[in-house]
Each structure stands twice: as C-alpha cells, then as structure tokens.
C-alpha cells in the first residue's frame, strides 16, 4: 500500500466516498428523488452565501431561494421518509424552512431536486455495475475453467460461443439482447434485467483469459503429481487451478465494474434501461437529448460530471502499468 501514488490513493478514497454517499442517499439528499414540484421546474443551482440580505455575516450558510431572498440552511431537518440500510428515517442532513426548497444542483423540468436524484440514482447504477460484473466474472470463470480444464468438445463449444459474442460491437450486442426483454419493467426488475443482460454478453473475455490461465495451470508438475495420486477433477480445479485465476479476476473486476456502470448509464440514457419514476445516472442524463434543455439549463449536465467522477475513481489500473514502467 505504501508505494501507491497520490492519484491512486485519491481515486480509492473517492471510490469509498462515492459508495458511502450513494448508500446514504436518503440522508444526504434533502428530498425524495421522485417528489415533483411543477412550480419550481428547471431552477438553477442555488448559491451558498455567508452574508444575509443586509450584508451581515453568519456562521450558518445561507442560500438564495426562488423568491430571490436568502434563507439559512438548517441541518438535521425532518423531511420525507426514506429507507437506508434497512432503517427508516426522516432526518436529512440539510434543508431550508418548508415553503421554500433548496436545490444545490438545480432542479429538473418537473421540479425534482437534482442532488437527491444524483445520489439516489447512484444506487441503481452502482448496484447494476457490481452485480453485472459479478455475473460476467462468475460465468466467465465457470465456462473458462470448463473449457480450459476439460478441453475437447467442451473447449470447442465455449470458445466458438465466445467468438460469437466478441464479434459484435458491444453496444449493438447490448441493445440487441436488451431487445428481447419487455420494454417497460419496474425499476429494480429493470436494473436486475440489465445486470443479467450485461452479464450474459460480457462473459466471453474473462472466459478466454481464465481458459488461458487454467490451460497453463493444469500442465504444472504438481498438478500432474496430484492427478497421479488420484485427486478428483473437482479437487484439481478448486485446489490447483482456480487459485491461479484470482489475480486475473481482481484485475478484470476493476476493469469491468466501471464499464458495466457505463453500460447501464448508456442503456438508461437511450431509454431502454431503468424507467422514469426510478432514477439512475442514465435516465438522469436523458433530458439532455433535448436541445432546448441543453440550451437553457446547463445544470442538467452536472450528473454527467458525477458519472465522469465515478469513471475516474474506478480507473484504478489505467496508469499503474505506466508508472511502474510496464507500458513505457
């Protein structure tokens, strides 16, 4: 750990903060992400001040509300009920006094708070990414091990299948597989379905890599020896071949999770992912497809920066090789 570069440490702490913030979305976000407020649609982000209307300084931050006057930000306020880690609560980290609303990242065309939506949206996006990576790696590990260890026709079938899945541009493949699911699904079913779809299409690359590792692992002398002593196939696989794939699995996970998060964001962005009442980073961004929104409401682009930040935090492996002189 000591030799990690500053930027790497930054990324890892960013990653941890991101996950904690997204898990605690209910507490950190001042409002319910689906709560509409048509009168306050497309409000720009509010500025935070430390001086009130008459220029007096306060220790407590103030925000400019919709009527143009400054109101103090209150902390640990009661608001909409939410569930977080199985607990139900009404306490939010901050808010302002009821008739007015605080929009630190602005509000969308239905007057929903973008900050709360970005936080809540992370739950579906991150969960989908992790779940899909788990599925793809599990499938890849299983099929790759079978192909590498047993060889013969099993190897043939698995590798030809992998070729098939690797032969298509990933987005076309993703959308084609998405096309065979019902169009409208309830949010968590949709997230689950997307994770399954991504897992189904992305198993090929890990499977190939695992196959290579297993192929070389099963040729080791000690594996031959174990086989000579009568060890079963299962024992040879689990005791001698699989442990060699762990490092590969870890690097693959670091590469795949951010890719899959982006895949979910892309699907939801084009309207084939998580549907509207629910939020994910993808459908948070989809209003941008209307030019009028881009032209008039720049803050609708802020969720894109959240996605960029997440992608940056996840790019743990990118520069590592370069710094260690592997890729010169």
């Amino acid at each position: 750990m000591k030799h990690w570069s500053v930027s790497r440490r930054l990324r890892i702490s960013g990653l941890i903060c991101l996950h904690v913030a997204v898990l605690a979305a209910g507490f950190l976000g001042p409002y319910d992400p689906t709560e509409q407020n048509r009168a306050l649609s497309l409000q720009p982000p509010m500025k935070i001040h430390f001086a009130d209307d008459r220029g007096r300084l306060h220790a407590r931050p103030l925000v400019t509300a919709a009527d143009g006057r400054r109101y103090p930000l209150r902390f640990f306020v009661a608001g909409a009920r939410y569930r977080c880690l199985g607990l139900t609560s009404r306490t939010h980290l901050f808010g302002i006094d009821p008739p007015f609303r605080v929009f630190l990242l602005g509000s969308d065309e239905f007057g929903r708070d973008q900050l709360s939506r970005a936080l809540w949206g992370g739950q579906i996006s991150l969960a989908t990414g992790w779940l899909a990576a788990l599925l793809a790696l599990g499938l890849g590990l299983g099929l790759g091990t079978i192909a590498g260890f047993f060889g013969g026709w099993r190897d043939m079938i698995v590798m030809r299948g992998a070729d098939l899945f690797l032969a298509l541009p990933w987005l076309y493949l993703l959308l084609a597989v998405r096309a065979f699911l019902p169009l409208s699904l309830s949010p968590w079913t949709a997230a689950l379905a997307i994770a399954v779809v991504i897992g189904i299409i992305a198993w090929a690359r890990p499977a190939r890599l695992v196959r290579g590792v297993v192929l070389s692992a099963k040729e080791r002398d000690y594996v031959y020896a174990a086989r000579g002593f009568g060890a079963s196939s299962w024992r040879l696989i689990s005791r001698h071949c699989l442990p060699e794939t762990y490092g590969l699995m870890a690097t693959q996970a670091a590469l795949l999770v951010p890719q899959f998060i982006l895949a979910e964001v892309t699907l939801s962005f084009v309207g084939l992912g998580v549907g509207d009442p629910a939020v994910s980073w993808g459908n948070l961004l989809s209003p941008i497809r209307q030019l009028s929104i881009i032209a008039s409401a720049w803050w609708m682009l802020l969720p894109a920066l959240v996605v960029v930040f997440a992608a940056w935090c996840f790019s743990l492996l990118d520069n590592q090789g370069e710094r260690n002189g592997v890729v010169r």
Partner: protein
Amino acid sequence: MRRLLQALFLLAGISILSFILLELAPGDFLGEAKLNPQLSPATLAALRHQYALDQSLPEKYIHWLGSVADGSFGISFAYNLPVSTLLWPRARATVRLTLTSLVLSWLIALPLGVWSAAGRNSWLDRGLSFATSALLALPDLALACLLLFVAVRTGWYRSSSLTLPVTVLVLAALPTLLRHVRSAVLDVAGQPYVRAARSHGISGARLWFRWILPAAANPLVSLFGLSLAGLISSSLLVETIVGWPGLGPLFLEAIAARDFYLVIGPVMLSAVFLVIGVLIGDLLLYLLDPRIRIET
C-alpha cells in the same frame, strides 16, 4: 480464404443467435394491434401470416435467409417497407461518419504517437500522456454530452454537419490509439538492432522510416480492426445524442417498436462492418509482414 469462410460462419452464428434471442422476446409487433377493437381476429391472423409471424423459428430463419439473398433483409412491420430501403441510407450515413473518424483519428494518432515516443519524457510527451489519461477516464457518453453542450452554447452546432459527431468520435478513439502507437514505437526503438543501426551512424529520418516504423507497424495493424469495433459502438451513441441520421437512431426506434427484422438488420450490418475491418487488418498485416506470409 480460410479467414473469409470463418467470417461467414461467424455471421451465420450471429444471425442465428439474434433470431433465437428475438424469438424469446415476449410480445411482437402486433401485440398492440391486438388491443385495437377495429381489427377483427381474422384480419390479425392474416396480418400475422403476411408478416410470417405465425411460422416456427427455423421457418422464419430460412424465410429471412431468402430475403437476404434477394437483398431486402425482410420487411419492417412499422414502415411496411423492405428493411433494406430503410437501412441503406442510414448505413451510408453511419459509414461516412465512422470512416471519416477512423481515418482522421489514425492520421492524428500516428504522427503524434511517434513524435511523443521520439521525444520521450519531453514536455510534449508528458502533455500528451496527461491528455490521454484524462480523455481515457472520460466516458464517451459524457464526452458527447459535454461537446454537444459546448457546441449548442457557442452556436456552431448544425444538425447536418459532420463536425460535431466526428470530433466526439475522434476524441473518444484517440487516447487508446495514441497509447498503442507510442508503446509500439518505444518497444521497437529499444531493440538491440536499433542500437546497432545507431552505432553504424544511421540516424534521423532514415533510422525512423527505414528501421523503426515498419517494425512497429505490426501490432498497430492488428489494432486497426479493434479500433473499428470501438468506433462503431461509440458512433451508435454519438448518433443518438447529436441526432445524426445513422443506424443508431433507427436501431433504437426498431427496438422500441419491436420491429423484428429492423432490429436484426443493424445488428448484422454492424457485425459485417467489423468483420470487414478485421479482414482488412489481416490483409494489411499479410502485405506488410513477411513473417506472416511465410507462415501461411
């Protein structure tokens, strides 16, 4: 020749796979029509028959293969037109976009990559590697959104112009290419024979163009096909975001409408593009690298 046959098998496999997937799809194009009280069950059955929706999977597939043979690629239910008439203009637009970006990104990446490798650790090299890291961390989607935003705000956005989508695609493809070009060139430049050439007094342009670059071309040619794959995917996304009338928007529309053959069309086309790209890459490699010519 063997590669060509393999490619054909691959395409057949993909088409069968997509047919099986779409067969599993719940509901078909006529699902909504069923709710329409003005259509009698008899008309529905007739429509069903006309679109060959009542056939079994192998029958459908053979039917479709026949339509591929006569060049129509099946019938789009939503437009009631042969898929090919819808597909070709869109495919042309996509090819125009991707080819321009492909050529442009390679034209930029090659000299820049070689340059930064030649002046390793110079300010240019450092600047470029910082820029590539930054661009790599930026997802295509975000890049497209940000550029669209800038374009709309500054007023140079034109829906019919290639500039914006090509810029996005080139910027999306560039970092990977740059990195590979740089590391391929550095790899070769560190070889003993280059040092030997240097010690023989060969330097400057002759060293680079005669000895280093041809040897570095090999991995880059293989990258050519792969870079095309990335471009096709990003182009789908970019087309949807900036409203370029390519395959992407048509494909999404077809999925939403459950327009069976119109979904298969773009999928197959994208696979064909990719296969052609990989074949071209192989061919180039065959022409460039004598070692491969001897092997085969």
